[in-house]
């Protein structure tokens, strides 16, 4: 280590020399305080760019990647956690060296965005090997963060942007962000959890993640998945720190693919560092291992203990909430309510009401925190002696339960048993119904926990979250089609969606006034807190006015865009909401629409060609390269899409080609089945596209392709309407 010091000074000296030219240019116009900042900046540049990682010396781009837009030659993220005086310090240094191989990459980096809390340094290497340091003090504030490209965007915070000079195709940009924060020494502080795939927008030649933590007080959770490498650990007794390194190299860029959950298929790492003083370990809301020893797995028992801890530590708050906010239930139900299901429903919808009405009550936003929801619900049920267990599961898009590592990954649910019926209750959003399937973790293994004051009495068991089948999630579109002027299809439609499918339609079908006021009336609540303050009352009314106007405009716009996706709607004439789909007694979303389409009837001499297949809307168009697949298939949920089309054939015409509409492709993954018959002058077409499961192994892809292609081929079928 001692030997390194002269080297560091040498690097520092070289840096100061290289930046001094810039400094000299500006020194005449800069104040002493600004010059001091410049010097500090130069020192920082020297420290970070002078890092001894050999990988950052490389300026060669591998030949195999020369056709890419850009290549990350080296990337390093350092996280340093330390304990100074009464503060917990966190420092993050992100450095990346990227070869820019085309204009789009140059454009991206030439307007360089960064969070205002970060310090940055940028150098550019020209193809001839010369290096230029970029002055970063010319950066300007970005007030509208909508303009921040996703490459640079991470959180909704303040950003700055810098026009990077002298950047051309073939250049290598070498840059860093440096961020430092201090927290007052709390009992426990969990730093932001990090989950990411090793592959990204550009190929990466070398990447490294380093953590440095002091011996005292820091807990690390880290693991790598799907083929990512393991951590390498080193210890420094002198500085009383432990360092952990994660190294990865030669990583191709992430190709986009449909039906893919990247955290399940791509090499991924997860980690989090938590500061906790030992005496608080017993009440921690995180999975803590041993200080300084990376924890890589969470056992069933640990999970149970964690649920027990969180339950105990929230007990008072939950009791308070139940006692002060749930008067409605207390008044309505005696202590020994006989109709347990009715009570359960009322409790659930009462809490959902808080969620969907939270526009009015700002203080109730906490009610959507799922731990809190589950604990409130549990308390309400316990008071009626309704059997329940807390269930913790991981969303199926991020991991499986064996790979659980961080408490943030968990979703809390409640398993309720009344008689022979079992319900899985989860935190409602504004559209949820009590009987809805939990799409987020359908079919996943989860743990059910019965917490107890005495940990010995706590019970943990493994369960599987129920999975909905395709018949639970049917979308039916009924179209009555007539022709006017021979070339316009007038369509009267009724769309019914059930189960999880209806979540795809809610936001475009419902507006606030369709369902919220009814809930207020049901629970006999006022939409806004009652107040005699005239200004507040006026404000509330203005809000309502504005929301109503906005809502109906939004619905119009949304329908227009939704329609335009599948075929070109020439006029949109009517919309009627028949069932909201969020009512406790009816859980289907049903609405009707009237609209006209021009593009689907084509003239052909005295005859007409009907592009009848297009009426089932746009279908997946698989490209040639998608026909083969080497990754498993994750589908949102099993589903059936049904179209029932009745087309009235105008007098004086007969249809040709109806037989082509009879298709039957079905296998264990799904199917596309269609039938067509002519009854009098009405052509009746029924189509059904089924996704039978929410997951298929990659080996089944060719079977899925069969019915996906069949559905697409159907859209291409034309009928001839021949003049008789």
């Amino acid at each position, binding site marked *: 280590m001692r030997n390194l010091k002269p080297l560091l000074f040498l690097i520092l000296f070289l840096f100061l020399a290289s930046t001094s030219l810039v400094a000299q240019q500006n020194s005449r116009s800069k104040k002493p305080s600004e010059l001091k900042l410049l010097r500090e900046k130069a020192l920082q540049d020297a420290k970070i760019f002078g890092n001894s990682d050999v990988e950052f010396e490389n300026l060669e781009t591998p030949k195999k990647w020369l056709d890419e*837009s850009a290549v990350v030659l080296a990337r390093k993220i350092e996280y340093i956690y330390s304990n100074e005086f009464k503060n917990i310090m966190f420092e993050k240094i992100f450095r990346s060296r990227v070869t820019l191989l085309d204009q789009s990459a140059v454009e991206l980096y030439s307007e360089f965005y960064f969070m205002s809390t970060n310090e940055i340094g940028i150098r550019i290497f020209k193809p001839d090997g010369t290096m230029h340091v970029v002055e970063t003090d010319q950066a300007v504030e970005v007030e509208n963060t909508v303009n921040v490209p996703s490459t640079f965007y991470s959180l909704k915070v303040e950003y700055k942007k810098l*026009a990077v000079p002298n*950047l051309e195709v073939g250049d290598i940009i070498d840059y860093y962000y440096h961020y430092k924060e201090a927290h007052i020494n709390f009992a426990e502080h969990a730093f932001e959890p990090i989950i990411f795939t090793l592959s990204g927008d550009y190929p990466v030649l070398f990447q490294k993640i380093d953590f440095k933590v002091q011996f005292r007080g820091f807990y690390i959770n880290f693991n790598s998945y799907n083929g990512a490498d393991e951590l390498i650990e080193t210890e420094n007794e002198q500085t009383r720190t432990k360092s952990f390194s994660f190294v990865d190299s030669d990583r191709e860029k992430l190709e986009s693919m449909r039906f893919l959950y990247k955290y399940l298929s791509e090499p991924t790492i997860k980690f989090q560092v938590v500061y906790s003083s030992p005496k608080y370990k017993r009440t921690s809301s995180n999975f803590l291992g041993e200080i300084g020893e990376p924890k890589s797995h969470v056992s069933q028992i640990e999970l149970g203990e964690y649920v027990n801890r969180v339950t105990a530590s929230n007990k008072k708050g939950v009791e308070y909430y139940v006692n002060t906010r749930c008067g409605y239930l207390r008044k309505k139900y005696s202590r020994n309510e006989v109709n347990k299901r009715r009570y359960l429903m009322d409790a659930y919808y009462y809490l959902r009401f808080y969620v969907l009405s939270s526009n009015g009550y700002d203080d109730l936003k906490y009610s959507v925190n799922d731990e809190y929801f589950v604990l409130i619900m549990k308390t309400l049920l316990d008071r009626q002696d309704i059997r329940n267990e807390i269930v913790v599961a991981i969303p199926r898009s991020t991991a499986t339960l064996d790979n659980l590592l961080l408490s943030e990954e968990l979703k809390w649910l409640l398993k309720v048993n009344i008689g022979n019926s079992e319900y899985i209750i989860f935190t409602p959003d504004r559209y949820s119904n009590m009987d809805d399937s939990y799409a987020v973790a359908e079919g996943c293994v989860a743990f059910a926990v019965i917490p107890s004051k005495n940990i010995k009495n706590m019970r943990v068991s493994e369960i599987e979250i129920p999975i909905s089948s395709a018949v639970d999630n049917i979308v039916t579109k009924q179209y009555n089609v007539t022709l006017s002027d021979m070339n316009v299809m007038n369509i009267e439609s009724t769309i019914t969606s059930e189960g999880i499918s209806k979540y795809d339609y809610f936001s475009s079908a419902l507006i606030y006034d369709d369902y919220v006021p009814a809930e207020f009336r049901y629970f006999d609540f006022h939409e806004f807190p009652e107040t005699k303050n005239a200004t507040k009352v*006026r404000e509330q009314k*203005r809000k309502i006015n504005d929301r109503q106007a906005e809502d109906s405009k939004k619905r119009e716009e949304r329908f227009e865009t939704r329609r335009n996706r599948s075929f070109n709607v020439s006029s949109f004439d009517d919309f009627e909401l028949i069932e909201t789909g969020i009512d406790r007694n009816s859980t289907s979303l049903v609405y009707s629409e009237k609209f006209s389409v021009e593009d689907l009837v084509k003239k052909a001499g005295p005859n007409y060609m009907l592009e009848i297949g297009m009426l089932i809307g746009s279908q997946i168009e698989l490209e040639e390269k998608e026909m083969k697949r080497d990754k498993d298939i994750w589908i949102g949920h099993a589903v059936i899409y049904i179209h029932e089309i009745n087309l009235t054939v105008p007098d004086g015409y007969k249809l040709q080609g109806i037989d082509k509409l009879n298709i039957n492709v079905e296998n264990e993954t799904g199917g596309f089945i269609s039938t067509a018959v002519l009854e009098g002058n009405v052509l009746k077409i029924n189509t059904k596209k089924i996704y039978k499961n929410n997951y298929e192994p990659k080996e089944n892809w060719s079977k899925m392709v069969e019915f996906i292609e069949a559905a697409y081929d159907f859209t291409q079928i034309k009928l001839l309407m021949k003049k008789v």
Partner: protein
Amino acid sequence: MNKLFLLIVSFFVLINTLNAQRIEQDLVKAKQLKKEYPDEKVVCLSSESVFNFFITSDKDEDMIEVDQNTEQRFISLIDYAEFVTFLYYDENSEISRLDVRGRNNKKESVVSLDQEYNGNGIFHSDGRMKLYDLGFDTKGEIKRSYYSKTYFNILYFPSVFFQEYFPVMEKTLIFNIPDWLDLELMEQNFEGYTFEKNIEKNPKQKTTTITYVFKNLDTPPDERKSFGPTYYMPHLLLLAKSYNDKGVKKNLFGSVDDLYDWYKSLVKQGKTDREVLKPIVEELIADKQTDEEKIKSIYYWVQDNIRYIAFEDGLAGFKPEDADKVYQNRYGDCKGMANLTKHMLIIAGFDARLTWLGTRHIAYSYDIPSLAVDNHMICTLIHGGKKIYLDATEEFIAYGALAERIQGRQVLIEDGDSYILETVPVVSSTENLQETTVNLILENDGRLTGTMKMEFIGEAKMDFQRNYQSLSSSYKDDALRVYLSDGDKNISIDKIETIGLNDRDIPLIIKSNISMDNQVAEFDDDMYITIDKDKEFEHFDIDSTRFCDWLFSYKLLFRSEVRLAIPEAYKVSYCPDNLKIITDDFSFDISYSYTDTELKYSKIIEISNGVIRKKDFDSWNSLIEELKKLYNDQVILSKI
């Protein structure tokens, strides 16, 4: 005592009655206005601005300051209306006062939000907006907003528009012009508006008061694809020509000479170090033989290597950045890029000049001496007695080509202490030709297969290049295939060959093989064929209530020809009707013809001036109807 009491009581009763009457009247007014403006929540009953002029000094330089005091009366047309309005300001101006008064003239607290205002494509500017909310409670409620704004220098305040983004029932602008100031108010686009104008001399104050009152001003149209607002919105240009300071006449912008002098003074402040540029210029022209080769080498280098990044911060909005700085930064705005082009060409031994102009977005010419006249800078090369306009902000433009936005525009070319006024030539749509030739045969399996050749020149080529070159390399091949197949899964494209993709001086040619599924439907002995896959303008109906002409990015000319070999034992039994419509601004000529062995489909579409005028919207829309019918019709081949 009793009398006094009665008097007081009667007074209050009277006040209350009057108040109630007024509220009633306001309500009636609101109801009337709601009928007229069903989409508006709030309208402005009156807006009155008074402008006063002062001489101020800043850094030994005198400036004419303009103070604006505005009072606006708004009425709510609905109960509980939220209404956010804003004021614009920048480095040359400030908002010094903003008050809102509600019922009984009671002052209300104003919560305002200060926000950056950046125009399109500007990296950073000094433009800012102050947003504030006037919340209304009842229909018919009236609120007044008062604000004061100061423009520090009249020269940076070249125009005032009458319309606001809300309807104004009565808009009054009052200019108290002191006798020492020679200020012309030039009226623009007043035709068709109801207004009064009054000029009053005030000998005592030594001022002339000019008052304009406009009635019933609607919100201006916010329509894409239109000319800039200076073409159609009523406004005044403030032409500050000179002023008299203690008996001495001092020029402002009295003529284009003054404007040029000012521009030139800014250019002279520049300190371009040509030594910095010499090596690159020498390198660029080293192996070039002819002048044209040398010029191209420099011009194309600037286009390819200098990115357009604009800072509009105070004077930076007018002063060209030093050329060496632009070179080192590898970025600049139009002025910086023009300046770099100029200096590099001078080093190479050419006569190159900075050139100011207003693009076609602006309605004015240099007959008007004002900063409102121009918004762009290019470089003019004077070579062989000709003026060649070089605009390096136009990526992918060829030497000698002229971008649509500068064609026909007057330019102000530097010429030492003098200047040259010229007009950029206008070129025809044939310079922007996009031509497609497709040769097809019908395969036994019903596919149409064959070859396709597309050729692009001028703006059509530049348009293609801009889109294509901005793509990430790894997606370029896919994107090209998607472009050629219109993203239609039925169309597969292979064996793509491009010529001229990286050469500005030759047309861009894309050749490929094409195979189309589902374009032929067979019923009995007939085959129904869709021959046109592109169907340009099929859905191009223009809303006939639109206010502005429809402006295309450039003059368009599409030409295409599809030839289909007729299979043996088949004949053409039906062809759709031909379509031929020719007007001054657009023409469509689409025809089918055939022999025993070949069907030919030919299409020529021209938008000859790059614009569809409002007067032609109806005929345009009926043309599109005809076009739809034609596109929707099929060719029928029948077995012989």
